């Protein structure tokens, strides 16, 4: 059998792990794929290179393919998301100076979003300066999670704080020099800020929205139509990698592989923090968050239509796109559990029985449920 070469782009982040392990531990080769991975410097490059066909597939922000299909990207091509690349992985880090101010108004040190948000709100109420936060991209889980947390904590994004766009590698420095006061980003960039003595992790995505997606595998619809077997083989390779990465016994090796010069080019101990959930919150203070990043458990690679619709609800909330039945349909159909199910079937694993689920009071930290069947009412209720 001749090997199919698949070229995939990624950004150097913890959740590029499944792609890297699929290649380095032979899961791709076992599926007859020569998986070439290309490290990129911006999400815009990932988007453009998928659009023009340089990349067959890519590590993408969860809302990115939805934005592309809704015509929000400068180059909008139809993109499918047939797999999620793990759950969780993000955190919110603030400067040590802002953390001190939060302590001064009674912050408990808990990484639960509720108390952290209350302390931030108290700081904003007493302060005269306008706080500035950074996220990696407008159409990102980071942006929507930060905004959700702020709004649910009684802080209006855009009115009470500024939210800037900044590439992850620049965030720790920006925090240290005071040009931003906090950021929401994926690992290892929270731990990098902590290790530099610049900040404290004040809350984590796993507590903001339990079992939530962050990056997805994005493929152009054109490529998927041309190579359906190749896509199925790629999904099986990534699924195999997810099983391997989900075993804690493999975490040290996974961190060492991911830290290699072609990938994140960082010491493995900093990558192991997010992978194992043993975080250092601020120099000298550690916390265990078992579900910080989940590569496999809890259907971590299943592309729920529900997740696409929640991201869509946030795109509407923050005025990226008007809510219409057509737009909602386009968003929901961007994630492709049907392709995932067909590809993963040979593993015989138990898969979710439905493509949609109700997110209950225990899913979002503020207890607001999200029922995809009740999208209109959810969008109506949310504040902008």
């Amino acid at each position, binding site marked *: 059998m001749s090997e199919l070469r698949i070229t995939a782009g990624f950004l150097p982040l913890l959740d590029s792990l499944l792609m890297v392990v699929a290649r380095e531990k032979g899961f791709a080769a076992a599926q007859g794929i020569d998986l070439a991975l290309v490290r990129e*410097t*911006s*999400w*815009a*490059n990932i988007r*453009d*290179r998928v*659009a*023009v*066909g*340089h990349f067959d597939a890519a590590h993408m922000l969860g809302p990115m393919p939805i934005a592309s299909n809704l015509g929000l990207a*400068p*180059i*909008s091509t139809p993109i499918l998301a047939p797999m999620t690349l793990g759950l969780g992985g993000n955190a919110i880090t603030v400067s040590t100076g802002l953390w001190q101010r939060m302590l001064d108004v009674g912050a408990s040190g808990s990484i639960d979003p509720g108390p952290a948000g209350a302390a931030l709100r108290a700081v904003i109420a007493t302060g005269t300066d306008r706080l500035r936060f950074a996220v*990696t*991209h*407008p159409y990102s889980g980071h942006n929507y999670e930060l905004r959700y947390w702020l709004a649910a904590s009684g802080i209006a994004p855009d009115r009470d704080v500024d939210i*800037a*766009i*900044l*590439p992850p*590698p*620049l965030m720790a420095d920006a925090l240290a020099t005071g040009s931003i006061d906090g950021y929401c980003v994926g690992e290892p960039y929270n731990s990098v800020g902590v290790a530099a003595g610049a900040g404290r992790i004040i809350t984590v995505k796993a507590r903001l929205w339990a079992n939530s997606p962050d990056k997805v595998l994005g493929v152009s619809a054109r490529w998927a139509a041309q190579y359906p077997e190749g896509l199925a083989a790629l999904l099986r390779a990534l699924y195999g990698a997810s099983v391997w990465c989900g075993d804690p016994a493999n975490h040290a090796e996974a961190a060492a592989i991911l830290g290699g010069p072609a990938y994140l080019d960082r010491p493995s101990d900093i990558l192991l923090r997010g992978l194992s959930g043993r975080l250092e919150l601020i120099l000298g203070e550690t916390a265990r968050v078992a579900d910080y990043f989940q590569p496999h458990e809890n259907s971590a690679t299943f592309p729920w239509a529900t997740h696409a619709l929640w991201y869509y609800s946030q795109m509407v909330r923050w005025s990226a796109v008007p809510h219409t039945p057509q737009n909602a349909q386009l968003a929901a159909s961007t994630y492709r559990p049907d392709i995932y199910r067909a590809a993963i079937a040979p593993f015989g694993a138990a898969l979710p029985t439905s493509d949609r689920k109700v997110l209950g009071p225990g899913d979002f930290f503020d207890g607001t449920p999200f029922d995809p069947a009740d999208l209109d009412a959810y969008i109506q209720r949310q504040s902008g």
Partner: protein
Amino acid sequence: MPASELSILIIDENRLRSSIIEAGLREAGHDRVTVLNSTQEVARRVVEIAPDVVVIDLENPDRDRLEHFFTLSKALQKPVAMFVDKSDAAAIGAAIEAGVSAYVVDGLRKDRIKSILDMAILRFNAYSRLQRELDEARTALEDRKLIDRAKAILWEQRGLSEPDAYNLLRKTAMNQNRRIVDIAQSLITAAGLLEP
């Protein structure tokens, strides 16, 4: 609008490459060309520059921030679109292949922007070629130094003349199906290990 009236902003941290592009655009009659070699100044400068066309290298890690800024910026007056025409896939492909991205004020005539983009692509490619040739020249020079060093070792240790030393390296390379420079490198390494 004559060519000279279009305001063009080049954002490229590579000073040599940006000056090559700037020169090309000026030769083509564009007088309002601004080069920024750092992304730090962009937000402050873009209001006074009021660019019609922004050219950025794809390797710029700050591209997401800049793109967001251009999308929101009131300085650009109108929404910006990327490249000349969203349907012009070949032009977009050529630009990305060359490492260029461009943002254009919506509504500008396609042929006017295309010539600017074509120039940027041409100069980006010319720069890459130049860089490649420089790298090759540097490698060739280093290769020659390694081979000279290996020949000197053969002269010192085995008393071989320069042509004989070279012939030995060449023959060994042929027999082992390797490059002469690789044989020279192995020989230098081995000699280093054997030194007292």
